[in-house]
């Protein structure tokens, strides 16, 4: 680690972006993002296998260099990829590259593992120190409280695909309806009406359930 005397001076400059993007093409980066979004939105196992194949050897190399232990490195791979599968809905394509997001998932897993070894603590602090989503659970709309409910999660699965996609993007990935319309290449009005339909259907089913 280099310690410079002119840290403050350096901080005024933005990092030279071109340099580190050169060896990975835009297409590659786009492909990784598509796979990750497919995992998030469709629980696409094929896309997950592709991500696994691309990332696992790299993660293992990094973890092996850090822990100097074969079994530990494999555990980091397994835990990281498990979190990728389970937390993909927290990834925001508009906020950054898939590689950056998966890196942070790996870094958090390794941090907790290291703490377990060194401080003998299993307190899993990484998600508090580096929250994967800014301002989680700060939604004020009362409906989002319902969305935290597992019951409702199951109901979301019963929606038609095109409504499910929109509910997941808006409520689990915090996308705006405008962003979504652009991404899906459909009119904003269609996004709005699908979301309205989906929410109405969810409310209806919740009411039905609570009357059982």
């Amino acid at each position, binding site marked *: 680690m280099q310690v410079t005397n002119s840290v403050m001076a350096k901080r005024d400059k933005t990092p030279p972006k071109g340099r580190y993007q050169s060896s990975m093409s835009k297409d590659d980066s786009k492909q990784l993002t598509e796979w990750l979004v497919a995992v998030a939105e469709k629980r696409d196992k094929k896309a997950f296998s592709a991500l696994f194949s691309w990332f696992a050897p790299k993660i293992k190399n990094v973890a092996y260099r850090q822990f100097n232990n074969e079994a530990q490195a494999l555990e980091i791979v397994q835990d990281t990829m498990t979190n990728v599968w389970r937390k993909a809905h927290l990834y925001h394509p508009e906020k950054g590259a898939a590689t950056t997001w998966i890196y942070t998932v790996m870094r958090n897993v390794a941090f907790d593992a290291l703490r377990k070894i060194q401080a003998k603590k299993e307190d899993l602090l990484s998600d508090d120190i580096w929250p994967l989503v800014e301002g989680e*659970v700060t939604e004020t709309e009362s409906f989002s409280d319902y969305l935290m409910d597992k019951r409702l999660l199951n109901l979301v699965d019963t929606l038609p695909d095109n409504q499910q996609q929109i509910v997941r993007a808006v409520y689990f990935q915090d996308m705006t309806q405008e962003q979504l319309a652009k991404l899906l290449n459909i009119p904003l009005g269609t996004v709005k009406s699908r979301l309205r339909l989906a929410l109405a259907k969810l409310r209806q089913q919740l009411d039905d359930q609570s009357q059982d």
Partner: protein
Amino acid sequence: MIKHHPKLDLIQAYTQGKLPASLSAAISIHASMCPDCQQLIDEQTELHASSVFENGGVNEVIYETETLSKIFAEADLDAMISAITSDDSVSQSQPVADKQVEINGQTYQLPRALANINHSNFSGIGKISRASLDLGEGDLHSHLLHIDAGGSVPSHTHKGFELTLLLDGTFSDESGEYVKGDFIMLDSSHEHTPISEKGCLCMTIADDALHFTQGLSKLLNPIGKMIY
């Protein structure tokens, strides 16, 4: 306005997960109040992520798969992938634990990064009280430090470094006034006498290990050795 920020080398070590939990939490709390540092952290994370993952593109998946089958021969690749994907539940973001501390009738909301760290009861003399944070980091000792309105900490220096992160309220010392979010790193050459007119709550991290006496610039070396 926040005037004191973590230096770039600390920010880099933080984004790479190389700092102890206490310092990581302190930088996280500072960044949650300082958009400039948050932006720097995002940039550094992106930089480091691409340097870690940049070798080889998607077109090399076939090659990677060969490597993959070597790496995971014993673990059985397909079994690993299907074990992961067979569990279809989605991680729900945990509701952020709402943790407050009450000291002498004053209630403070603790930041998220401290919400799951246990601390002892507050104890102290006069207007100063502290509680130790249970992080198990050896010579690194972390505390919550509370100064009641009108209180001051006796003049002191440190063997190693002392970080003071102002969580709420204000205090001042010989160098000026500090506000909520200020990240104040002092080494053993500094002597100071903090005074708080209206009261404040801080997180402090001090290192009492002798090998830190050369100050902050050497901070990362011993930690590096401790980790690797």
